[in-house]
């Protein structure tokens, strides 16, 4: 059957075209990008190892299939050198994984996208890095990858702020900022409890500061105290006035003991001088700073004279907890003279700007009720209650919750009128925490205040927030802090909360005002430590140390955590000391007493029940306070325990040593039981 020439020619043209197209399709199938990388990798491997066998290894798709995580990762198809140390100098995609992350997180168990995001199953550069339209989670580049640490490592377990996740400095820093700046005061984040008010209560602020100072403060807190955590709310003059009016209504006049108020007190140079001395020797600088010296833990006092009313200060020093029941300022048990001296000194502290201290008596007529109401509304809308106790407006989260903030897509974010920036989540988060006002438009004002974060802080916070994602990991991947770690973490948290390091030294860090605590638990019984922390008293009657342990009014669990912590770092058993029961003979004790009182004349330096010397520590409750092994060690050679101590080294004979120890260990057995919550 003869074909027409036209048909024949068409067949002869179309069929070869079909063949060409088909071969094109074949070629497209067998020319995938990952094959190029595979071949290149083999060349590099050959160069590095000199083993010709590696060149003939098949180029294949390598896949990690992690059923539990629901992850299919093919990243290692191109990133073949990720877990092989000799590729450290190669360019990507062949370079060895940085750091030692893979040691603790083997690739076979964790895959890649768990931390880095991106599209695991994809095999082209763009798609695999998640920069393709249909993948919502692009590769986390650079240190933003640390945000994923939070998926398994839960930071919010009452950890101390100094807790650090090794290898995730950025993430830890972000978490620290998040906690420190009390973001949960406005934002809800599940798993994070709203912390206690980090700002002072405003219920009686009118009795503490003047209206002018308040307005200045509200307008720009960092201009008043550069290091403050109080953010700037971008208030107009009127708004700040309204808020001040509102706050000044909660006045609650401070009532200092009348005996404290003395005429001419604040101008007496001798008293001021004494106060300055006390301020340092009592250890106030352990927490407060004055003109750049001291710690930033508690408010800077450089401008006290320009800020607070004198009678408030007197009352405050007399009993801080009477003014603010939740304050962390301890009761230093100051005498009236000390209070007066310190107050007088502090009231002299003024910034160079030279504004006058608020008048002792209040301004005249009250502001119009309308203004007060307006101020109240602003206070409510701005979420001041997140950090301050105000009284009337109860607490509520005023800002959007942060759960799943890391899952937000660019089209769900409000960029305002901003142009010329990359419209992605990380950029948005950075701008939002650094300068939220930039998203404001005529129609929609950004409520979030300015915290004055710098670029590095903003990046850290953004890293932390990026990790707040919905997708959770199965339980085996979750990292709970282990038990010994938990003791340490809890103890450290309490230690930090009360700024113990302001006076005590621990682990090579901290102030030198009070004894170092590294080996404290070796010396003291835990029961006694607990009681002492709950209600400190003076162990040394003498005037050697001016500083004294203040009463922090610790709750039981904090005191227990600290005690446990100190035992833990000293390697001592907790909660009780299983000291072997010893047979103590009455004659030994009698001999010991003789030695104590007469032969070695310990009583000359130490006191017992109110009698004796005032140089060494009191011995009235020694047995309930100290552990026997430590006492023995101390008696043998005090200098080996604490170099430079004034206690002399006695050369005891063996029986003397035994008898003396036996005697000492009968002194005031278990007095701590009575001490506990005595008044």
């Amino acid at each position, binding site marked *: *059957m003869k074909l027409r020439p036209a048909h*024949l020619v068409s*067949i002869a043209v179309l*069929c070869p075209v*079909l*063949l060409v197209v088909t071969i094109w399709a074949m070629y497209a199938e067998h020319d995938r990008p990952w094959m190029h990388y595979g071949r290149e990798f083999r060349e590099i491997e050959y160069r590095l190892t000199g083993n010709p066998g590696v060149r003939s290894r098949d180029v294949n798709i390598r*896949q990690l299939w992690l059923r539990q995580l629901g992850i299919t990762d093919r990243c290692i198809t191109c990133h073949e050198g990720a*877990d092989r*140390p000799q590729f450290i100098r190669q360019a990507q995609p062949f370079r060895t994984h940085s750091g030692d992350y893979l040691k603790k997180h083997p690739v076979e168990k964790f895959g890649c996208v768990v931390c880095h995001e991106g599209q695991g199953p994809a095999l082209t550069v763009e798609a695999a890095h998640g920069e393709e339209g249909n993948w919502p989670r692009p590769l986390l580049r650079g240190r933003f990858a640390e945000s994923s640490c939070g998926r398994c490592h839960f930071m919010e377990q009452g950890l101390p702020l100094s807790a650090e996740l090794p290898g995730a400095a950025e993430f830890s820093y972000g978490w620290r900022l998040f906690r420190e700046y009390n973001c949960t005061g406005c934002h809800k984040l599940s798993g994070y409890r709203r912390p206690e008010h980090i700002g002072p209560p405003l219920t009686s602020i009118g009795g503490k500061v003047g209206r002018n100072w308040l307005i200045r403060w509200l307008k720009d807190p960092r201009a008043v105290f550069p290091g403050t955590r109080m953010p700037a709310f971008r208030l107009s003059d009127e708004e700040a006035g309204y808020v001040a009016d509102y706050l000044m209504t909660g006045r609650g006049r401070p009532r200092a003991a009348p005996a404290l108020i003395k005429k001419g007190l604040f101008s007496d140079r001798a008293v001021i001088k004494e106060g300055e001395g006390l301020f340092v020797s009592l250890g106030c600088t352990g927490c407060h700073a004055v003109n750049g010296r001291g710690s930033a833990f508690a408010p800077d006092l450089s401008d006290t004279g320009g800020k607070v009313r004198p009678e408030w200060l007197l009352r405050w020093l007399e009993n801080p907890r009477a003014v603010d029941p939740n304050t962390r300022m301890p009761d230093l048990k100051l005498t009236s003279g000390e209070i007066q001296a310190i107050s007088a000194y502090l009231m002299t502290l003024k910034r160079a700007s030279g504004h006058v201290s608020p008048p002792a008596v209040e301004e005249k007529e009250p502001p119009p009720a309308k203004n007060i109401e307006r101020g109240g509304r602003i206070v409510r809308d701005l979420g001041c209650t997140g950090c301050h106790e105000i009284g009337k407006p109860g607490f509520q989260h005023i800002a959007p919750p942060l759960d799943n903030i890391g899952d937000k897509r660019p089209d769900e974010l409000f960029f305002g009128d901003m142009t010329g920036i990359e419209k992605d989540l990380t950029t948005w988060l950075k701008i939002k925490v650094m300068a939220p006002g930039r998203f404001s438009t005529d129609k929609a004002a950004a409520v979030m205040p300015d915290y004055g974060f710098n670029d590095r802080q903003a990046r850290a916070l953004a890293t932390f927030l990026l990790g707040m994602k919905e997708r959770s990991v199965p339980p085996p991947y979750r990292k709970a802090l282990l038990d010994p770690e938990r003791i340490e973490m809890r103890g450290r948290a309490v230690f930090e909360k009360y700024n113990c390091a302001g006076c005590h030294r621990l682990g090579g860090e901290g102030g030198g005002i009070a004894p170092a605590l590294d080996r404290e638990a070796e010396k003291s019984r835990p029961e006694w430590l607990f009681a002492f922390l709950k209600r400190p008293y003076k162990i040394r009657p003498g005037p050697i140390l001016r500083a004294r342990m203040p009463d922090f009014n610790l709750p039981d669990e904090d005191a227990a955590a600290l005690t446990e912590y100190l035992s833990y770092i000293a390697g001592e058993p907790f909660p009780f000391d299983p000291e072997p029961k010893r047979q103590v003979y009455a004659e030994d004790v009698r001999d010991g007493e003789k030695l104590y009182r007469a032969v070695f004349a310990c009583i000359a330096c130490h006191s017992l029940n109110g009698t004796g010397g005032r140089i060494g520590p009191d011995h009235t409750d020694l047995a309930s306070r100290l552990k026997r092994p430590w006492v023995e060690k101390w008696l043998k050679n005090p200098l080996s325990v604490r170099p430079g101590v004034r206690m002399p080294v006695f050369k005891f004979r063996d029986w003397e040593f035994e008898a003396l120890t036996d005697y000492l260990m009968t002194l005031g057995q278990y007095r701590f039981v009575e001490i506990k919550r005595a008044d």
Partner: protein
Amino acid sequence: MPTPRSRFLGRGESGDDAAGGTAAPMDVSADKQRINRRMFLKITGWGSFFITMGVFLAGTLRFLFPRVLFEQPPTFKIGVPGDFFSGGPDLQDGHIRVYEQWKKEHAVWIVREGRRLYAMYAKCTHLGCTPNWFPEERIFKCPCHGSRFYSNGVNFAGPAPRPLDRFGIFLAGDGRITVDKSRIYRFRDFDKQGAYLEV
């Protein structure tokens, strides 16, 4: 009657010879040229068509062989040599230790015999049941037909025809010991390179 021109019509094969031997020999050169041209077109057209069909078929077959599988990979890592060889007296010959933790997931016992480490397949060589390890007696027992193996996998009782098979084991580039289940060594290959790891 077919004309000479029609000799090559039809199926597109070059040798279509419907007219049998009866056709008159070609003697006109113009005709010959036309025939050759038709021949050429036909070969190009049908040739490329059938090649294409072949390629389609090959492609379809290739389609049925995916490049990656959702299965346990044949290789898995069991740790660094230090996990198994801690040094000391038990490295001498004849001291055998059986590690059971990979049996459940991978059906493998890791056995250390002196300085050698090998991966034993937890499958009876008789009929494929999974034997159990009894550390007190230091033998493997197969529950199906009662085969018994010493701790090094050598059979000594029951119907099992040969010692337990072993998998390939080697030190990977990252310094960790890797078991390769795609390579199986039988008794006579136990001393071959790759069936054991020696330190």
